[in-house]
């Protein structure tokens, strides 16, 4: 709902990820695949509270927004997303941040070449 007072707005989390695919993936297809994975795993009710939005995706690196209460569920859904259409993918979560600015800076600029598990 638009125009909510700050106290009622939900806090957000930004998930930086890298996508390895066997052919080019478009952002719309990816967003759809993540939604499908989430709905298939948690159903319509819990998916409605997730607030997923694909903020940025350049074909390899991306940022996914969600509500902070749904973070774990979104991470699980992203991990279990194995296909986008007919293309096989490996989604690698680089890290999570509370602001998009910090997320971009930390995970997509500074640590772009770091390992997914050790470097972040």
């Amino acid at each position, binding site marked *: 709902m638009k125009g909510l007072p700050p106290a009622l707005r939900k806090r957000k989390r930004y998930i930086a990820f890298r996508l*390895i695919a*066997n052919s080019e993936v478009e952002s719309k297809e990816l967003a759809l695949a993540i939604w499908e994975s989430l709905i*298939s795993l948690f159903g319509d009710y819990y998916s409605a509270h997730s607030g997923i939005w694909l903020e940025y995706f350049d074909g390899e690196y991306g940022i996914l927004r969600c509500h902070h209460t749904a973070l*774990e569920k979104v*991470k*699980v859904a992203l*991990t*279990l997303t*194995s296909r986008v259409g007919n293309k*096989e*993918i*490996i989604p*690698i*979560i680089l890290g999570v941040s509370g602001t998009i600015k910090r997320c971009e800076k930390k995970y997509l600029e500074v640590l772009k070449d770091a*390992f*997914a*598990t*050790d470097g972040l």
Partner: protein
Amino acid sequence: MDVDFVRFVPPREKIDLFGFDNFIVFTENPDEVDDFPRGYLIQAESVADLSSKLRRAKKGWLVGVKSSDPKVNRQAVMRKQVDILLDSMDRKLDYTTVKLAAEKDVTIEICLSKFLNVRGLKRIRIFEETIDTIQIVKKFDVPFVLTSGASNMFEMRPKRQIYDFFSFIGADVEKAKAFMHRLVRRLTDPNYIMDGLEIEG
């Protein structure tokens, strides 16, 4: 040491992406694997089949059994050569087998790849069985490991994502890491005898 179990030889250049220290490759012919620690994959659908394949196991291999028949899995747990019961989409374990695994110190693998290629009712069943297995494993303190169990590159996931997923469904990740460490030491360290007992010097 964080190690993952896979069913194929992963490409060296992609290994760093996943954050594991090493991979154990389970194949039916471990002699073909050079770069990684060897795991002998026994796919058996009858007890006789299991016995004949176990005779081919060599020292230094990690022996894993994969079967959809609960009788074969129970028999496998009772064999001294068997180190691990491998996971797959159609693995069937019963309560007695899991309980027996704790007594015989046979590790139970719980893998992520079985969740990736299925949807709907089949995936619901897999979730149900995995959560049940995790509960029984907790109850009897059965050795268990959490792995990707990937049979191709696209079934692999980073270490942290695998642990996050299993933690979400109720597994004790720290215990799984400790059991994995113990299993790898048993395979690679000649001085290791058991927890708290090793040859010095």
